[in-house]
């Protein structure tokens, strides 16, 4: 449980650093330009390096986990996406994992009853629900942020924003994605804290990204709904950043610097942490390989010959016993040298 404390302290420090840096020391250029650049560079090259590293390691064996009927006889219906036998089907399987969290959707939970009643199994889709809510809310939120990066704002971003604000509550309008994001992260956190076995397996590395996301979403919400920031100045800064001509305007509140510092931390942390799981699914051999092992030869680049016990050695040892039992031999006993 010490992991929770460490993670919480770390995120507090990450909030304090830009606050002191900007308010106390006036380091707006450091926190508004240099650190975001560095974070983006670390994110980009870190992810790239990780993907290259993974892709260079061979898959010596084809080991898909089969989750449905194999392709065998023509009249038996194959379960194409749970047991793919072609590249197209594998793509389908991987996409169903990426967009629908197929495997997580299978989740069920055994309930060990009191003595004698045995075990029953209940569907346990809540992890799937939290995960789906979180990831789609995250995606929508990031996508919405494109309006800070573009001028004019492209129609898909406006469109998503329109849908996102359909509740038409509050001024400015409440964005559902942000709300859902915050709720889902809190649910994922609660789950880790409340259920004993999840608390038991959790490390600081599991709590830290959750607290970080809570802090990011909260600072974002504060800016949008309560404190308010100078949006045109911020937009100028961001467009400056992405066009490599950074402009630092006066009067952007410290909240923005805290927000962007936390996001920078998340980006820099991403390639070296469990957050890299986003890329991992494409490389996972149990999901990304076809179950066609018997139909198509799969080559192991480091395959090497082994000295197995040969038939000749076997026959040599059991010659007499095999002869007696009437088992045919390669070398006829009569034709062997030294026998008459």
């Amino acid at each position: 449980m010490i992991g929770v404390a460490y993670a919480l302290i770390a995120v507090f420090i990450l909030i304090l650093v830009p606050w002191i840096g900007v308010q106390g020391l006036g380091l707006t250029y450091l926190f508004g330009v240099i650190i975001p650049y560095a974070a983006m560079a670390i994110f980009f090259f870190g992810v790239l390096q990780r993907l290259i590293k993974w892709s260079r390691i061979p898959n010596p064996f084809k080991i898909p986990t089969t989750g449905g009927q194999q392709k065998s006889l023509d009249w038996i219906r194959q379960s194409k996406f749970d047991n793919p036998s072609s590249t197209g089907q594998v793509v389908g399987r991987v996409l169903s994992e990426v967009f629908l969290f197929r495997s997580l959707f299978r989740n069920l939970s055994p309930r060990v009853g009191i003595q004698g009643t045995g075990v029953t199994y209940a569907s346990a889709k809540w992890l799937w629900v939290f995960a789906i809510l979180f990831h789609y809310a995250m995606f929508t939120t990031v996508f919405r942020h494109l309006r800070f990066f573009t001028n004019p704002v492209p129609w898909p971003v406006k469109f998503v924003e329109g849908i996102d604000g359909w509740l038409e509550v509050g001024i400015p309008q409440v964005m559902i994605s942000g709300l859902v994001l915050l709720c889902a992260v809190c649910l994922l956190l609660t789950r880790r804290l409340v259920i004993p076995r999840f608390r038991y397996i959790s490390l600081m590395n599991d709590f830290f990204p959750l607290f970080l996301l809570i802090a990011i979403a909260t600072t974002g919400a504060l800016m949008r709904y309560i404190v308010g920031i100078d949006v045109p100045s911020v937009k100028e800064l961001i467009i400056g950043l992405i066009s490599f001509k950074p402009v630092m305007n006066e009067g952007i509140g410290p909240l923005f610097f805290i927000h962007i510092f936390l996001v920078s931390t998340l980006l820099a942390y991403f390639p070296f942490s469990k957050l890299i799981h986003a890329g991992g699914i494409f490389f996972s051999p149990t999901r990304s390989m076809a179950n066609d092992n018997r139909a198509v030869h799969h080559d192991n680049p480091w395959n090497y010959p082994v000295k197995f016990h040969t038939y000749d050695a076997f026959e040599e040892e059991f010659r007499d016993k095999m002869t007696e039992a009437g088992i045919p031999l390669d070398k006829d006993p009569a034709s062997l040298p030294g026998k008459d």
Partner: protein
Amino acid sequence: MTDDLPKPEKLSQIDLTMPSTGWMDTPALLKKGIFCHAARAKDIEALNMPNPRDWRVEDDDWKLPENWQEIILDGLRERLEKFRSLRIFMDTCVRCGACADKCHFFIGSGDPKNMPVLRAELLRSVYRSNFTGAGKIMGKMVGARGLTEKVLKEWWYYFFQCTECRRCSLFCPYGIDTAEITIIVRELLNLLGLNIDWIASPVAKCHHVGNHIGMEPQAMKESIDFLCDDIKDITGIRIEPSFNRKGAEILFITSSGDYYSEPGIFTCMGYLMLFHQLGLDYTWSTYAAEGGNFGYFTSHEAAKLLNAKIYAEAERLGVKYILGGECGHMWRVLNQYMDTMNGPPDFLETPVSPVTGTRFENAASTKAVHICEFTADLIKEDKLTFDPKRNDHIDLTYHDSCNVARGMGMFEEPRYIIKKVCNNFYEMPEETIREQTFCCGSGAGLHAGEDMELRMRGGFARANAVRHVRDKHGVNMLACICAIDRAAFPTLMEYWAPEVGVTGIHELLANAMIMDGEKERTQDIRGEDLPNLEPEDKGDKH
């Protein structure tokens, strides 16, 4: 069953509360009844594997080589570069816990280190501390720990509590496969000579003699001839199978469990009767006499070493293809490894059923067909006639064996056969069959006598589902297509679900199959009288 094994009432009281100390601070206490005996020096030597010595699990001193940490870390480094699976599985776990309660050992023991996520963390923690920047700098705070003797013993204890059934891998959102991690950690442990006796001994025998039990060629032939005598008594038909016959069309390979012990031998009689009825041009081999591969529970190299004999023998005998019997991990190896390890076998041909003419395109490269595929095709093409009433004394349920379920995906073929030969068939609850099937608790070489408590705990989830259909539908027979299942289930059923027998599918088939020239059947394959065929008993059923 051993005397110190707790009664089922006691064993089913599973404590699911987590320890008060974190898992890194909770040392593994090696418990008698859970672990297996240590491998013996002579068996390690037989395969020229490193660090052979006699040692005892109970002793503090495991006689490790002086530079054992270096050996393990070098071995791990090498494998991180050779297996993408390992690197991905080390890097991507988010500890979401979806796998936690999917493991039959966790369900049956409540031991947190039997949650697949923690089993993997046992290795991942060492990976972090030696191969990641964060782990090197921040240590325990980020879940990293050094490789100490305690950690090594913990590995040994828990990676020989995994049956490589892959159930966790099905539910993992990233497909992290604990079986793969177990295979690799066992491989590392084997670098130090830390195998278990129940695996090392069969491997040595299989390597040298040809099968796990060390049955010599003449004894194997005798054993099968003996089964033919029983077939003669039951059907009136004399079968004379051939051994090591050159020029046969098909080489038949099955697990040795099928020709030496009950109830596997009844399944074996089924094969013999089926092949005879078809007039199949096939041969047994006394050299490649083992389909099972305990090398696979040792290291990839040992798996390859034992598996190599199958293609070598097929080439020597000049057969066209290979037909494989009912065995679980044998088929994981044949399906996912054989062609890569020892193929492609260009001297063989794409399998074609000589009876129906069906080409098995799904085996076009490996040239190995599963007998359930072969038989399902025969039945579909109407090449066999059955009297399923001969199985009416059986109320059947079917266990999907882990390896053919999650390492192949063979679900419909066996069910198709069952439904044609057996009138009374009941499925277990859907969360416990097909791809979600539970392990027998004794797979991956853990089917020893000294770890009986582990086996009963591991098989609890499976047995619980069997007990459910026993009580609900009066099921009295459990079918499976795995030799380890057939060896392990009788004990497991006796313990958790008494009155349920164990059978293979080809035993059921042989009961029902009408053979040319057979005498009127009054006995089933086990030599037991068929009650339902007597007129006065008719209608009593149900």
